């Protein structure tokens, strides 16, 4: 029976993605390194502060891996959570694993400890780019119930490659944030079809932001991640400039679009209204002919 990646907890996802029995956890729950900020606010803490980090193998090759738990405060990044991720990235620069694997499931910065969380996000972005410069391959998997938003969305887009499911969501400002800031007329966060249309895996794949789109299945995420262990790695000035040019071009092409299907139409999708309902294989057949190059 297929196992839903969307429904699984961080630990279940992690156990399913890496080689069975290969995971060794750093700063495990029994170390009880929990959030001092939450304790001060008399709020519930988690023994792992919402993120599992450690060493494992994937398809027999060494990886360093982190999995965020979207069920604990939306997977949001606080001081301890951020420090665990940062330590893992720093370790990758000396250990040189085949990949640094992030199982993202996070709404961004944890409001209870916003300053520490914001600092952590900026440190993490810098650390990932430095690790990439040093040749460490950074892969992100996005398909959890909490999505990948805010600072975590920024971190994800700093990775070399992203694997998403249709159920995965990736964006800077989350739906509720947009609605709060700009009003329900601008964005109705309860309109789930709209939310998935403009942040979901299909849209991100068509825009070239997700490199692989898979079914909501732990094994498919695992296979895609393993497949990407041989993808090109490294960050050069030329690559950054190419990315900037690509973003510039996207702005010129799509800035006046009101909704995702308009973008899909301009990309050359024949029946954009049908895209959300297409099964994965049919969608890929349509999308691979016209999507923006990653």
């Amino acid at each position: 029976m297929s196992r839903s990646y969307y429904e699984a907890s961080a630990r279940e996802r992690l156990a399913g993605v890496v080689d069975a029995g290969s995971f060794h956890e750093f700063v495990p729950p029994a170390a009880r390194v929990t959030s001092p900020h939450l304790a001060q606010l008399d709020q519930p803490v988690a023994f792992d502060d919402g993120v599992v980090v450690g060493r494992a193998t994937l398809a027999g090759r060494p990886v360093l891996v982190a999995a965020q738990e979207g069920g604990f405060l939306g997977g949001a990044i606080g001081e301890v959570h951020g420090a665990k991720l940062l330590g893992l990235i720093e370790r990758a620069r000396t250990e040189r694993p085949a990949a640094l694997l992030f199982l993202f499931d996070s709404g961004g910065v944890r409001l209870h400890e916003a300053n520490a969380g914001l600092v952590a996000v900026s440190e993490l972005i810098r650390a990932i780019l430095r690790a990439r410069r040093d040749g460490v391959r950074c892969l992100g998997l996005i398909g959890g119930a909490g999505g990948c938003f805010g600072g975590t969305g920024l971190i994800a887009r700093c990775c070399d490659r992203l694997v998403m499911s249709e159920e995965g969501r990736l964006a800077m400002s989350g739906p509720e944030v947009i609605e709060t800031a700009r009003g329900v007329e601008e964005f109705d966060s309860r309109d789930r079809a709209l939310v998935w249309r403009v942040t979901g895996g299909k849209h991100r794949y068509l825009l070239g932001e997700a490199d692989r789109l898979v079914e909501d299945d732990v094994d498919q995420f695992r296979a895609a991640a393993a497949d990407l262990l041989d993808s090109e790695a490294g960050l050069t000035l030329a690559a950054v400039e190419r990315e900037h040019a690509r973003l510039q071009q996207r702005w010129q092409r799509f800035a006046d679009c009101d909704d995702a299907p308009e973008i899909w139409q301009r990309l050359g999708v024949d029946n954009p209204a049908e895209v959300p309902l297409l099964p994965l294989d049919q969608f890929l057949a349509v999308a691979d002919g016209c999507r923006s190059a990653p």
Partner: protein
Amino acid sequence: MEHLDYELPSRPQPHRREPLLVGVVGSGNCELLLEGGPPADRCRISIKTSAHGFAPIWTAVVADFAARAAAGGLQIEINDVGATPAVVSLRLDQAIEAWEESANV
């Protein structure tokens, strides 16, 4: 947060392994950290819960658990966000099962 601590008689848990985490600290849910430590015929349970005023219910839930499970020699710490007794009991049973399934000895 309300803190509750129990030490209860329980049948000895025959298996040994490294600490184990079960569950998630989310609304209506809880996480449990299991470790060895107490004497073989005693189970220690300590709870931190965001729902105040339910001590009598916790007392009954953990007493039933210690009576039905082989939890002797285990220390169980719980971080709770308003899980119902049904969910807490289920997580406790799942934790013992997971402990035994992946035991080293």
